[in-house]
């Protein structure tokens, strides 16, 4: 299991666990973390699992790559930033232990 913390827009921190190999989207949905919709089922197709990776983690998680589907979708998301990622595109491997993700006020 890998530990990940979701921080909501009101500052509430929720530490949850998820099996290795799942994604951060599943970590939120399986543990009832509010604010992650994930409408498309994890296919990088809807941008409703938008998160801001904590700046201390962004290099390990990796940034959006221009021209790729994830960046194409997130360009339309409200409040997208240089730390934006889709949770469904963050695989929860062992080295992600302790990851901190910030959930926007609303998904779009």
């Amino acid at each position, binding site marked *: 299991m890998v530990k990940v913390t979701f921080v909501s827009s009101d500052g509430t921190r929720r530490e949850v666990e998820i099996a290795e190999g799942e994604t951060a989207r599943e970590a939120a949905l399986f543990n009832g973390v509010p604010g992650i919709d994930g409408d498309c089922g994890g296919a990088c*197709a809807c941008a409703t699992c938008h998160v801001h990776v904590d700046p201390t983690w962004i290099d390990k998680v990796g940034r959006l790559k221009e021209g790729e589907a994830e960046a194409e979708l997130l360009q339309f998301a409200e409040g997208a930033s240089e730390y934006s990622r889709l949770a469904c595109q963050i695989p929860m491997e062992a080295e992600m232990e302790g990851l901190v993700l910030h959930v926007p*006020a609303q998904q779009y």
Partner: protein
Amino acid sequence: MSIDTMELDTAEKIAAIPIDEIDVSRPSLFQQDTIGLFFDRLRKEKPVHYCRESHVGPFWSITKFDDIMAVDTNHKVFSSEAKLGGIAIQDMHSVEGALELEMFIAMDPPKHDQQRKAVTPAVAPSNLLLLEPTIRERACQILDDLPIGEEFDWVDKVSIELTTMTLATLFDFPWEERRKLTRWSDVTTAAPETGIVASYEARREELIECAMYFKGLWDQRVNEPPRNDLISIMAHSPATKDMPFLEFLGNLLLLIVGGNDTTRNSISGGVLALNQNPTEYRKLNNDPSLIASMVPEIIRWQTPLTHMRRTALQDWEIGGKQIKKGDKVVMWYLSGNRDETIIDQADRFIIDRKNPRHHLSFGYGIHRCMGNRLAELQLRIIWEEIHKRFAKVEVTGEPERLYSTLVRGITKLPVRLHAR
């Protein structure tokens, strides 16, 4: 209902048609609401199906959820470009006398991306939060004015009225003239054969009148401090303030059309679905918190836009079939939303589904519906307010459906209200 016996006859006939001769482009199938039986056969027998001959020419039908998702997210191969035919099964023809509107829904990147980004803030969640109290107040007014115990048409009195007033709110449009928006929406999608306009010249004239009206609003807002209505946002945003006029008009009309037919028919479709499924209506009455999951279920169930179309820019394989460059590819959202392999008991309307947002009605990928949160907001508000006032919105007669392959519309729905 009398429709049941009709369906039995039709079901036998439909079962006997050779699979390659099935043509789902006929608007009558949608008006009679027998289209589901055709899609059931396609999904089972030939999920990627080629129709050689039809009134809209040859086309591919994509009928399963995952195949639709694969096409929708692959905009590099499957184009939305208007000049290649655009986004509906019927080509966007260049008709003489017609006004050529520029809409980003029928564009590919990079132009699509720039224009969509410019308009998005108007319907983004933070702006909707500001609009919600006004939309709710106006929804309450509509419901409070309805007669109790008397038959009336739900479509005209509620569905059209609510979506029109929401658009008027979004644009901060002069209130007394709001039905102009409904008219312009109808005119934008109209061809002369629909009877809505007499000719393409007449359509052009009405759209120019629409353009001049909005130009007036623009000139007024551009000289005032920025506000949160869409016209003010566009008049003040660096990305849009210098937009060529036909683009400004095209994008406005896209929002008017996009926010009109679709939500209107989901509002009507929800009333119909609850009446056809009394167990679900009881669930709702016992627990109004189910509105949260009922709203996406209504949108799946209704699928107000039956399809979106793309044009292949290169040869490509889908579901074992070879699509050729230039082929017309139709993603049938209405069929994918009934795909049993993805959605549990897909042919049933269930308001407390576990994963109700996993449906195709908004599309996926870069063209995914921009107003999806606004649509859900309107449905949520209207059902919350209906629940407070009425024990039941009873359907008292057969619904009438729209003669259209694209818009899954209900044109008339007689109802009677029971007070709570």
